[in-house]
């Protein structure tokens, strides 16, 4: 209360809070002062001067957007003097535009500038001058600087919000100009097309390309982005049954920000390739390991009615169940579908098919991380949310490339560094995040345990560990201490490729920090010692007490928009929903009762084991929903052969994926904007996705299809609608026990744990206890072991596979999104220029990359972010599928394949 005061505005007393600007205080009092360069939630710049007010006693007028209100100030926002300058400013700005944009035509376009031109009734523009060329080199964004009013909102959006640092303001005076990089065209620049600038622009200088994007809209649907685990809230603008554009919404995880995929990657839902009718394999058309191309589909499959297709799907599964038992069947659920779909799917597999062989793509992603977390902390979710970067002193990012795979989360990390947080990036690849880092450790692939153990040895040796925390809240420290003592910085330095003093400096920085966060990604998890890697990270946090409080903890960045939710909902062979082991009899009884069925008490097979089983013939039938193992599994030749051996494969998807090539029946399903459901992001936020459009043709809701199949397999489920499924989930999953569908609809985003007892969100975990039975966390020491396949004379290079900003995983969605595929239309192999010289390869050459398991041909892209000896391929291009090369060796505990390390050889391709 003592931070409140009053001041005079236009003759009235106005209450303001300490730290409020005159403009904001005025707004709160119902007085809207004109403004253009000011934008809510951005740093005010005070350059347009449209908001100037008279403050009594001051010689010149003051910009109300930037000037703090003070007690006893007497302010005039609409007297003659203030209004004169406000109007003059708008007049000058509108008259400064080019010949196409006189004040008359400005009024008719739907921008903020036009709103003020109308407000002040400005009739004619003056002094028009020549239009600069419109820049259409970027497929997403059109640049028309003739309409620019130099308000710099785009500069602040790019440099201060997203920190992509592409837009600058160059020259001076009336030559002031928005520039990209060193004044390049947008297409040539390092612009990542996040569109934050477009969202910020108050005129039509920066717009989303395509007239449709700028039409006034019929319907606005508030929902979530379908792509990554950041879970940005957005609004789809829908007109004539189609999504026209996406706008960022103020969600807790994104605060109005989006990336190129969320903003511009929605049009895949309207692509002509969408499955619209059920398909059944034509009798006699045999399966081979080869993929079926788009124009061959009608050679292999015939259209069918839903009743025939469902009957066919169900009967095929039932036959295998009856003859061979449930364990000859398996289901792969989707990490992109909703929680309700995931829950229903695993319920179906378990109840109807009598097996726990149900899994999803987390197996290929964070399975090792989750294994380590469950083992050491008892919980499979992040301990702190991304937003804690604003509170923390040190941010460690290891084995992750958030600027490509969690772009909006990366913006908050970059913001934090500007506010003083220290950033440590540990990765074999020098991404654009490293520019903001205080320490960048470009270590050699596969040396994580060495590096982490040696950091821990330094911390213990220098007495920087948190003895109190260790004593009171952990077990098994002595074993860890013993193990890491053998990993001195000197002993690991040459293998890791990091100087001992650097190892020490980073160890000290992390240990001494009052608060510290560790973020990690696939570089840690996708190894045969991925569980060991993750164990080291968790041990580091426990060792220093950097967990269990605000701003301190561990955060494996979850990839898919709903991989956290899918895992929580039980799409996992070892556990029921909420990680309750299937082997525990109490759990089994509980679910048998709620599900009104009998269940198997045997742990099921993981994705990789299922594929093995299919290859050996022990798995005969599969039901795959929204997953694409024929592109995402390692050693694709083997995986595709295995899939081809299946007697009965039911595919439920929105496109004819590569996996559909092996299907017996294909069920056309609903894309993300065509359904309503809850989705859980990486932060443990359960968020509501709302339906914006109808599925095309005869495509149906995934949830409906699962229910229909369940019915055909004699299940008597008491739920049907999304809300009803959600209700059952809250009854069997204590972590969300306190949530209701109504509450979710009201709030759009709720963090769990949100239990029945607490009735509130637990945003930071482990404040009092850890989730193991003892209440304490358990240190788990890791010993160094190397990758399954090391470079050899025949295969001298290390292949690292991964993703890129513009494409999502196997490319099913993004290769069919105009903007995204235009930005990155072609497969490539990234190489360091020294390697290119060594192998006598020029940029743009087409080369053949091969491993013991397969080969691909693609163009070479020079990338000196890579270390010498490493090459990189994204796995989204079917024409050069990187997983043809990868090895299917798996981590013994997490069962995750080693996507990040295998040996390859390169040669120039005969075909150029």
């Amino acid at each position, binding site marked *: 209360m003592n931070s409140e005061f009053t001041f005079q505005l236009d003759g009235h007393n106005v209450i303001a809070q300490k730290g409020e600007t005159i403009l904001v205080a005025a707004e709160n009092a119902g007085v809207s002062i004109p403004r253009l360069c000011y934008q809510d939630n951005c740093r005010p710049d005070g350059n347009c001067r449209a908001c100037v007010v008279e403050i009594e006693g001051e010689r010149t007028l003051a910009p109300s957007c930037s000037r703090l209100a003070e007690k006893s100030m007497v302010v005039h926002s609409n007297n003659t003097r203030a209004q*004169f300058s406000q109007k003059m400013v708008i007049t000058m700005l509108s008259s400064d535009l080019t010949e196409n944009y006189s004040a008359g035509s400005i009024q008719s376009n739907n921008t903020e500038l036009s709103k003020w031109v109308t407000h002040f009734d400005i009739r004619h523009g003056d002094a028009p001058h020549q239009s600069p060329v419109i820049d259409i080199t970027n*497929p997403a964004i059109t640049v028309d600087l003739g309409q620019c009013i130099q308000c710099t909102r785009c500069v602040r959006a790019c440099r201060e919000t997203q920190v992509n640092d592409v837009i600058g303001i160059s020259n*001076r005076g009336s030559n002031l100009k928005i520039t990209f990089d060193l004044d390049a065209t947008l297409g040539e620049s*390092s612009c990542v097309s996040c569109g934050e600038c477009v969202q910020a622009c108050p005129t039509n200088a920066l717009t989303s390309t395509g007239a449709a994007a700028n039409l006034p809209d019929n319907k606005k649907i508030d929902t979530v982005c379908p792509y990554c685990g950041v879970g940005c809230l957005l609004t789809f603008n829908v007109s004539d049954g189609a999504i026209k554009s996406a706008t960022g919404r103020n969600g807790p995880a994104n605060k109005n920000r989006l990336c190129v995929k969320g903003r511009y990657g929605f049009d895949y839902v309207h692509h002509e390739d969408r499955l619209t009718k059920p398909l059944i394999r034509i009798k006699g058309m045999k399966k081979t390991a080869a993929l079926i191309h788009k124009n061959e589909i009608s050679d292999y499959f015939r259209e069918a009615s839903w009743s025939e297709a469902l009957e066919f799907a169900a009967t095929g599964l039932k036959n295998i169940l009856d003859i061979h038992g449930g364990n000859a069947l398996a289901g792969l659920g989707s990490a992109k579908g909703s929680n309700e779909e995931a829950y229903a799917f695993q319920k179906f597999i378990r109840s109807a098919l009598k097996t726990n062989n149900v899994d999803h793509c987390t197996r290929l992603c964070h399975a090792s991380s989750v294994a380590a977390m469950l083992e050491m902390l008892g919980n499979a979710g992040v301990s702190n949310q991304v937003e804690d970067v604003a509170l923390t002193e040190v941010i460690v990012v290891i084995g992750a490339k958030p600027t490509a795979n969690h772009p909006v989360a990366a913006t908050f990390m970059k913001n934090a560094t500007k506010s003083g947080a220290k950033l440590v990036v540990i990765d074999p690849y020098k991404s654009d995040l490293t520019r903001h880092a205080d320490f960048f450790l470009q270590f050699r692939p596969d040396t994580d345990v060495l590096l982490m153990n040696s950091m821990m040895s330094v911390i213990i040796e220098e007495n920087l560990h948190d003895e109190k925390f260790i004593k009171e809240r952990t077990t098994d420290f002595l074993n860890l201490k013993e193990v890491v003592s053998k990993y001195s910085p000197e002993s690991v330095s040459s293998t890791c490729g990091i100087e001992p003093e650097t190892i020490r400096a980073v160890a000290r920085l992390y240990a001494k920090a009052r608060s510290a966060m560790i973020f990690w990604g696939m570089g840690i998890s996708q190894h045969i010692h991925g569980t060991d890697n993750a164990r080291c990270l968790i041990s580091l946090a426990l060792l220093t007490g950097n967990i269990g409080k605000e701003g301190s903890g561990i955060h494996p960045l979850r990839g898919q928009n709903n991989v956290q939710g899918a895992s929580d909902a039980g799409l996992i062979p070892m556990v029921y929903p909420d990680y309750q082991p299937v082997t525990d009899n109490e759990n089994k009884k509980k679910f048998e009762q709620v599900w009104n069925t009998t269940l198997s008490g045997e742990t099921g097979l993981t994705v990789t084991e299922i594929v093995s089983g299919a290859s050996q013939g022990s798995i005969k039938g599969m039901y795959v929903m929204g997953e694409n193992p024929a592109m995402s599994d390692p050693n694709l030749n083997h995986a595709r052969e295995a899939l081809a051996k299946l007697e009965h494969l039911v595919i439920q998807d929105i496109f004819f994926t590569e996996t559909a090539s092996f299907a017996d029946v294909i069920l056309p399903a609903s894309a993300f904007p065509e359904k309503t459901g809850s989705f859980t992001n990486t932060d443990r936020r359960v968020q509501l996705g709302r339906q914006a459009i109808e599925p095309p043709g005869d495509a149906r809701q995934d949830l409906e299809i699962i229910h229909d199949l369940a019915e055909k397999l004699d299940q008597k489920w008491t739920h049907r609608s999304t809300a009803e499924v959600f209700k059952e989930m809250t009854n069997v999953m204590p972590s969300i026990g306190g949530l209701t569908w109504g509450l979710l609809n009201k709030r759009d985003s709720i963090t769990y744990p949100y239990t029945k007892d607490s009735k509130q969100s637990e945003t930071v975990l482990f404040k009092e206890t850890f989730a193991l039975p003892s209440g304490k966390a358990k240190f788990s020491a890791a010993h160094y072991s190397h990758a399954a396949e090391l470079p050899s004379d025949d295969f001298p290079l290390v292949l690292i596979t991964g993703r890129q900003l513009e494409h999502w995983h196997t490319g099913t969605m993004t290769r069919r999104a105009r903007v995204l595929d235009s930005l990155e239309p072609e497969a490539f192999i990234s190489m360091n220029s020294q390697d290119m010289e060594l192998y006598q390869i020029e940029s*743009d050459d087409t080369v053949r990359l091969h491993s013991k398991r397969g080969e691909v041909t693609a163009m070479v892209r020079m990338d000196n972010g890579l270390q010498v000896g490493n090459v990189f391929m994204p796995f989204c291009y079917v024409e050069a599928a990187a997983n043809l090369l990868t090895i299917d060796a798996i981590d013994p505990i997490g069962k995750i394949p080693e996507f990040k390390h295998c040996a390859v050889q390169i040669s120039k391709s005969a075909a150029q």
Partner: protein
Amino acid sequence: MKSKRNQTRGLAITPSVLAEIKILLGSSPFRRDLLIEYLHLIQDNYNHISKAHLVALADCLKISLAEVHEVASFYHHFNLIQDSKQTTPNLTIRVCESLTCKMFGSEELSMKLEKSISNNVKLEKVPCVGQCSNAPIAVVGQRVIKEATAENVLDCKSYTSQIPNYEKLAPYIVSGGYGALKKCTDGIVTRSAAVKLLSDSGLRGLGGAGFPAGKKWEIVRQQPSPRYLAVNIDEGEPGTFKDRTYLESKPHQFLEGMLIAAWAVEAHKCIIYLRDEYAACRQILIEEIKAISVAFPNGVPSIELRRGAGSYVCGEESAMIESIEGKRGIPRLRPPYIAANGIFGKPTLEHNLETLYRVTDVINHGSNFHSSHGRHGRTGLISFSVSGRIMTPGMYLAPAGITLRELIDEYCNGMSPGHELKAYFPGGASGGILPASLADIPLDFDTLQEHDCFIGSAAIIVLSDHDNVASYAKNAMNFFAKESCGKCTPCRVGTKQASTLMSARSWDINKLKDLATVMTDASICGLGQAAPNPMKSVIKHFKEEIS
């Protein structure tokens, strides 16, 4: 439109260029705030700055290409080339086009030179280079050619700056130099006593704003440490050359004053910002700063000399600080004021060179040294830079309150033969224009405001009946349009639109008055606020020239 890319987005680093640049920049770690110094090194070494250079520089400083380009493109002294295969001239001739040089034929000079220079020589028209008493001026490389003609410019074969004879350290000390500083550091004069001396002296800032110097010291002393001292030698106001005059004759009196001021507010670092057009002064300062660092190894705060890069607005104190921080020279929004939030957000005492020069006098001779002078009821001494239609243009230290008539008669030996006084600029390009009928008003801080003028840096430009006053007002407005930083609408658009309107035979007075109002009322800094002054003066006093 589909793109196929064989390298990562944006511009790749050229390893050989990066290696060259690293050697050129010297020892790492590289400092972000030295960006402008690094750009100078590149410009001086290659005569241009290429994209490859900027990419390498961005990498060294770990900043984005956009950030480097923003800064490099702001300053006119940096020759950014698009294509590294572009040939760069190996010599640039700069012809000043500001008020007094215009008066003495700069336009004709430029035209003549343009026809005669060879292919590898570039001709540039530049704003006031601070040599107005010898107009017109051309600068060949770094060599200043006074009373320039096409002949003597083309004849010039020596391109380095000429260092004038100035008082070096030894003779300065012999005549009692650094005695005032010693009084302070020995404790004979306490800090509060020094502040009082300065306040009592009535010394006001001599850069143009006229803020009481003693009061400034008091305010800064109240701020938490660490504190900076910033010296403004950007002297860019057309018609002004007093700071250069003092620096080229008695630099140590200024340096001593600087050290006294630093001592008084306990500043840990002094940063001297020198306009890059003063190449001779730069050599002098480098030499003499080194000399005092040797002579007084302890007890002097660290002193850094920083180069401007061709921007008048960097004479504005907050824009100068932005430039010191290695950024675009954009004036800051005030409040907060730089006394509290200056260099890197720390409290900063900022002074014009001459003010510090006078500080030494005050400490040496007492508070009435300055206050015992004055005329027509005014107090103090002012260094007038006088140029134009007078017999002997030059810098004259005269009593505050002197009138123009007295200044011309007593100091400048009268008007040039055949020239009758018509008008004068009392305060450079920004102080407005007064008619001959107002040649008898006292010239001082606060005396000209009632006439919509101000004295500023006391740069007096005298116009005669040979001169069309409106054309000088137009010259001034063009100057402001070119020097505007561009941030705020009233100045950026106002100076441009006013320039256009003032180029017409007949001025649209109503439109110009509207522009003048918004510029004066709503510009962020003094440049935009003062830019309309000459225009307003012409509308008021010389309407016949513009109808």
